[in-house]
């Protein structure tokens, strides 16, 4: 990869240890992806915010980094492990809360906007189409490329961090128009489709696709299905983009048999103790839908609903929060299902969710069983 004189100097440590580290990361990614140069990016969205995912190593790394680092471009951050406003209601050890606070402080000190959300594409105004951004959250990277018209690779936590520090990223993979063309088409053969079907389709597509995949047999997706597709795809593979049209190359069917295989892999229980909604976090539109669906009903079980804080005022003012709380829903802001310490095998055996991404991480990381079903099925079976 060719670097400018200025970039070379930074890599050699002439502008400090932090910039040298950031450029070392960018050069490694550049080598890995066959990039020729670095290009400017306008917005970095960072993962690695939840203490449960980055641990003591990550917490100390960020604390050290924040001593002399300021982000160069607009920088937003992924969910934390908890909601500081309501944490006293949960049994969580003090050490976890302190470490999470330290991580939050480090990011804010470096200039991050405290968004704590995995759906930046839904809560921030988007730059104009074609703008290069650097999104580490996998569902957000896929959504940005496929729906928002932005350009990003499916970044790693450290590559997006390096982009936030330098304002740059290697020009490669999905940043290059010729690689955005899908070379595999998944033919959607399932007749009755809901968001869970699309989540499983995404999980399947992620396993078989390269950088970009075409999905045929489906034309318009509502927001819930679209987010579910992005999250499923981001969980299983390295694919960072989809289009809803026939692509070139190999054609692969996603039929009942393939869907059953995915279900068998992720669904490990026929029922659950707790319902969780929100991986990715639910936005305004989904909360509005949920309030309507729950009209005159109440949950038979505890139901945890994960949202970005950015929508709290709106859903409160519009009365949605009140209606959902009346039905027994419990709102948590700034965090999400994935690896939250609030759900673990000491307090819960099995969890009901409509999220394929949630299911994967609940099982592998939180160690609980999962009962996968669509939102409409959850409302039908788990409310009275």
């Amino acid at each position, binding site marked *: 990869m060719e670097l400018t004189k200025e970039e070379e100097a930074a890599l050699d440590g002439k502008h400090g240890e932090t910039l040298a*580290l950031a450029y*070392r*990361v960018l*050069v*490694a*990614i550049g*080598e*890995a*992806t066959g990039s020729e140069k670095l290009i400017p990016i306008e917005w970095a969205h960072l*993962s*690695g915010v*939840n203490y449960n*995912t*980055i*641990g*003591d*190593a*990550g917490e*100390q*790394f960020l604390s050290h980094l924040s001593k002399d680092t300021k982000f160069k471009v607009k920088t937003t951050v992924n969910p934390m492990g908890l909601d500081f406003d309501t944490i006293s209601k949960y049994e969580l050890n003090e050490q976890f809360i302190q470490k999470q606070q330290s991580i939050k402080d480090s990011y804010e000190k470096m200039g991050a906007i405290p968004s704590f959300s995995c759906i930046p594409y839904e809560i921030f105004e988007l730059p104009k189409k074609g703008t290069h951004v650097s999104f*580490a*959250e*996998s569902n957000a990277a896929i959504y940005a490329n496929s729906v928002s018209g932005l350009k990003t*690779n*499916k*970044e*790693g*936590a*450290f*590559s*997006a961090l*390096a982009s936030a520090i330098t304002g740059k990223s290697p020009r490669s*993979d999905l940043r290059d128009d010729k690689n955005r063309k899908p070379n595999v088409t998944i033919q959607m053969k399932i007749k009755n489709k809901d968001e869970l079907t699309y989540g499983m389709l995404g999980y399947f597509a*992620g396993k078989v696709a390269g950088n970009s995949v075409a999905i045929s047999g489906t034309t318009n997706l509502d927001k819930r299905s679209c987010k579910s597709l992005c999250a499923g795809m*981001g*969980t*299983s*593979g*390295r694919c960072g983009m989809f289009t809803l049209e026939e692509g070139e190359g190999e054609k692969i069917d996603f039929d009942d048999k393939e869907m059953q295989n995915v279900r068998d*892999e992720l669904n490990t229980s026929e029922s659950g103790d707790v319902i969780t909604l929100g991986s990715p976090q639910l936005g305004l539109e989904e909360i509005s839908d949920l309030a309507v669906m729950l009209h005159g009903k109440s949950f038979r079980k505890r139901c945890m609903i994960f949202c970005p804080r950015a929508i709290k005022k709106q859903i409160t003012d519009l009365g949605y929060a009140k209606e959902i709380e009346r039905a027994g829903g419990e709102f948590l802001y700034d965090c999400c299902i*994935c*690896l939250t310490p609030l759900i673990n095998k000491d307090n819960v055996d099995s969890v009901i969710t409509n999220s394929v991404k949630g299911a*994967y*991480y609940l099982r*592998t*990381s939180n160690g609980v069983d999962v009962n996968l079903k669509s939102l409409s099925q959850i409302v039908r079976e788990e409310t009275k």
Partner: protein
Amino acid sequence: MNVQVIVKGKTKGALLVSRNPINFLGGIDKKTGLVRDENHDLFGKSIANKILVFPFGVGSSVGAYTIYSLKYNKRAPLAMICLKADITTASGCAISNIPLVVVPKRDYESLKDGSKVSLDAIKGNIL
């Protein structure tokens, strides 16, 4: 065998070969280095102090922090050999100073589990 160097370094050790991609965040325990994804061909094995051979990383971008945590907890692989280095693995190795190289498919398939090799990720070869 010639290799493409992504992150520089030198090491010697035994190969641990996987044919499945790795989701570091969900798939590997950052404190022990054990593979905890039941559906993975390395399930129950430790990747610590081995030269880890796998096609590429998948899934969560936070897997890069898992790689860094493994190093911090002294349970990291000595080096990694991939078929295609993904961004999460490359950035995780770069921050953690874990040598990372890429090999072509034919060479990748010739790497045998358990065999002892010497990896020079400066000159770019495996002996």
